[in-house]
């Protein structure tokens, strides 16, 4: 909990606490050295240590970013498009915070960021966010939606929260993604002790047969193809592809997907059991039997891979065999799938839409293929991937331009997309927006509990988009009412140390109050025009009326399109 003196110092524009100066005053090398030791503390310090990843021949992130930017530049030239100009550091900080932590920068963070030399701000900001536990938790939740969905599942054998926490730890420790996938696909044991196995236990039904402990190969095949390979082949569960939507086999000469392709993939999971004793491969092989469309009887499916079969091994353990194939360095769809998903998380929309439907045969955006090469070549390094995505040009471009912005600009990533915030981002941004300090893992436990509880309730009321969270959605009346009159917002306006009322009481003058309100809500300062509109109305009142005016301005800012959209 921050004291009044410190709060006043933030409002005045300087940092009273040396622990906050890591971002501001460390050189890039000292920042990295702190990362290696993990010895610092404080809300802007780097706390985690990454495990050793291949570094000897690893090109600098900047080199890859340059190549990605060059590829985007070429596509803009080819399409005859002018790209938007770059945004300022605060707008960049806001969109990266929303993309990586699901909230907006705190005033505390903004003050420190602004003390960093201009040419280092974006890079330092991404490093700062990557070291923040909020980022690993936020990314884990996003990936968990793809891996296990959003529902609670069978109570006795499934713990989604454990799975998310486990994922967050792996992301924080920067476990190479191929190893992460292998752990998920080959995991055994109890879901509480080895949370990766919740991938399997999620598919267990509580049905009439108490002895039925088989996981659901069909749902697992669908999950594997969508989440791990970025391919929607679910329709093949019931019939051969007749629309030309699913191509499998040889990527150079693909053929239409067959029902047998899907069930041959499902057969890798047959025999995996999930019971109160945990997830394990059963003692004896269990054939996966399917009655194919128009067949008169069931047939046992032989496990077979849907494409790139030359990468298959002879491992007798079916799940390990599948995991080896999925994570084989030449199995590029696996890398494409996670890169496309991480791009969607950080940038707001995927490179290839929908996020989990990248055709086997392409065509692939050239920037994607550059990132695939880098990702595989650098040991499936997720942190590096995030840094590449976050610092490449499309993420730095403005959503506005002096020229007409066409759909072609959007398709080519020549402007930053204007997107409505997801419910979790709206909730996270509201919670942070009334606080001067960062509500992160270092915040007081009560603040964190309050944040967690109110965010959960808000998202429930607002409407959780579920797994398909990158699809554009419209706003509902329920959401509008919640934003205008909901308790989450009114709590932040009216009560406690993290409230606008409290903030108003500490502001030395009308100008500083307005600036603070704009910075904590919109991550920018008011324009001259906005000052002209708001400041006289603040100066015209005093005492409790001044507090009310601050509350009303905050309400208008939080309900504005500028706050509820990423831009």
């Amino acid at each position, binding site marked *: 909990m921050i004291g009044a003196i410190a709060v006043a110092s933030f409002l005045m524009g300087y940092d009273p606490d040396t622990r906050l100066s890591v971002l501001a005053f460390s050189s890039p090398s000292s920042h990295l050295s702190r990362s290696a030791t993990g010895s610092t503390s404080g809300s802007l310090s780097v706390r985690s240590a990454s495990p050793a990843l291949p570094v000897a021949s690893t090109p600098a992130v900047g080199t890859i970013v340059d190549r990605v930017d060059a590829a985007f530049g070429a596509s803009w030239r080819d399409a005859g498009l002018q790209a938007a100009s770059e945004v300022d550091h605060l707008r960049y900080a806001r969109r990266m915070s929303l993309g990586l932590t699901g909230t907006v920068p705190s005033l505390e963070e903004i003050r420190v960021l602004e003390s960093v030399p201009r040419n280092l701000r974006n890079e330092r900001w991404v490093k700062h966010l990557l070291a923040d536990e909020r980022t690993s938790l936020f990314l884990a939740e996003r990936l968990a939606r793809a891996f296990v969905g959003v529902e609670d599942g069978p109570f006795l054998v499934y713990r989604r929260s454990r799975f998310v926490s486990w994922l967050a730890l792996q992301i924080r420790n920067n476990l190479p993604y191929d190893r992460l996938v292998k752990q998920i696909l080959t995991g055994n044991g109890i879901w509480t002790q080895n949370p990766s196995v919740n991938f399997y236990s999620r598919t267990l039904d*509580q049905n009439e047969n*108490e002895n039925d402990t088989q996981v659901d190969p069909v749902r697992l095949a669908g999950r594997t193809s969508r989440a791990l390979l970025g391919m929607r082949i679910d329709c093949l569960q019931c019939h051969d592809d007749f629309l030309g939507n699913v191509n499998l086999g040889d990527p150079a000469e693909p053929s239409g997907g067959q029902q047998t392709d899907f069930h041959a993939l499902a057969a890798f999971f047959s025999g995996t059991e999930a019971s109160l004793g945990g997830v394990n491969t059963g003692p004896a092989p269990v054939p996966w039997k399917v009655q194919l469309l128009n067949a008169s009887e069931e047939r046992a499916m032989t496990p077979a891979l849907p494409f790139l079969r030359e990468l298959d091994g002879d491992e007798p353990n079916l799940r390990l065999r599948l995991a080896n194939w999925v994570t084989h360095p030449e199995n590029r769809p696996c890398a494409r799938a996670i890169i496309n998903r991480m791009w969607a998380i950080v940038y707001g929309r995927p490179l290839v839409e929908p996020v989990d439907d990248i055709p086997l045969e392409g065509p692939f955006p050239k920037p994607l293929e550059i990132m695939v090469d880098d990702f595989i070549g650098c040991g499936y390094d997720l942190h590096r991937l995030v840094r590449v995505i976050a610092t490449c040009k499309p993420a730095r471009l403005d959503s506005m331009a002096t020229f007409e912005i066409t759909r072609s600009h959007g398709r080519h990533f020549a402007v930053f997309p204007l997107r409505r915030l997801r419910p979790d981002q709206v909730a996270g941004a509201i919670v942070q927006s009334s606080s001067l300090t960062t509500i992160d893992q270092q915040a007081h436990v009560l603040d964190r509990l309050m944040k967690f509880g109110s965010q959960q309730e808000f998202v429930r009321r607002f409407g959780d988009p579920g797994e398909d969270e990158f699809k554009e959605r419209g706003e509902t009346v329920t959401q509008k009412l919640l934003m205008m009159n909901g308790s989450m917002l009114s709590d932040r306006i009216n009560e406690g140390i993290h409230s606008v009322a409290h903030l108003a009481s500490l502001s030395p003058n009308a100008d500083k109050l307005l600036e603070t309100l704009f910075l904590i809500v919109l991550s920018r300062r008011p324009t001259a025009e906005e000052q002209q509109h708001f400041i006289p109305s603040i100066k015209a009142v005093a005492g409790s009326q001044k507090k009310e005016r601050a509350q009303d301005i905050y309400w208008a800012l939080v309900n504005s399109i500028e706050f509820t959209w990423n831009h």
Partner: protein
Amino acid sequence: MHCRSPEHYSRRTLLKAAGIGGLSSISWLTPLATALARAQETDKRNAGKRPKSLIVLWMEGAPSQLETFDPHPGTEIAAGSKAIQTNAPGIMLGKGLEQTATLMDSISIVRALTSKEGDHERAIYNVKTGYRPDPTLTHPSIGSVICHQLKDAAGTTIDIPRHVSILPGQLPGRGGYLGDSYDAFKVFDPLGSIPDVKTLVKKDRQKQRLLDLQRMDQKFISSRANNQIVEGKLGNHNLEAALKMMSSEQLKAFDISELPIGVRQPFGDTPFGRGCLAAIGLIESGVRCVEVTLGGWDTHVNNHELQGNRIKVLDPAFASLIRELKARDLLDTTMVVCGGEFGRTPWVNGLGGRDHWPHGFSVAMAGGGIQGGRVVGETSPAPERGSKTPSKFLRDANPIENLHATILNRLGIDYSRELDTPIGRPLKICAGQPIGGLFE
């Protein structure tokens, strides 16, 4: 209202043309505008005809058919459960449904419903949408389909949402590919206030807030007016509808606290009972689909006692709902459907519970032309335990999509019509066929 019927747009267009909509006037819906809009809407419709509506009594967790609508007293699978006679000859109900039994001549039962989903979330999705979960597409719930397909009530202007979920459970009705604007509006115990509809400050402050907001939004939108990608999307589109709802007299339909105790008491002093009573008022106000949830049916242990506790809540509410709809002359135009995501196993497990059973479960239906006193489908009193083909122990079974086709067809919706979906594949509103034998 936010179901975006064509009429709604017409009214809005009229308001816009008259220059009296939007934020520029905070009292943006003048009596004149309302009158003009209503007149135009009324002209377009067949005045005097009451539209058809749906009330879903959603038994979340899955009620046991053996203790409710499909008892087999005296058999091994009854496991001691008793049944009672009803006023419909030959139809029995589970013990505890005594009030409902007196109205059985107005209620019919579809037994032997089947699905392929034995997991709660997936089965809820399946029963509410008529489709199995598909990771590539979110299907709309039946309430959303009804709002999408049917027009507003003749001669009425509906300020409140036309799709409402009272006491929402895990998955309240969603608009799915029809859009979030068709999501059910969620409210809780009708004895309490409706969430988020009261302005938090006095009028003058609210007016100032809206003016400040308008200023912020105008600037943001105008600076992006050259962005074709978000053309028509960028805006505080639902602000107007939200403000209209906040000041609507129709909000009273959500609140039963001022109704006489004599009206409330028969429904039972429970949130579910109050929800059923509120549902009637909402239907009267023009709401098209109300879902009222009663949870707690997932009885893997101690089935008989726990089901009995739920039945105590269900019986007075269900029966009173039918009675009151009749009394208000609403039953003919309001279909009531009572059921859950699946049934429960014919066999009691070692903990005295019944597990999940999608291979023959029941729903009760009334109103909207349902004849009453009829039963469609039959389950065996002695199914084979562990059978790989449980459907062979059913007669006149119906998959869940047939229930949807029945409801939609009766409400006058072309259930086989194909709608465009975001994945580029046209999809039938419903893939089932109406169940025969329930209507005249």
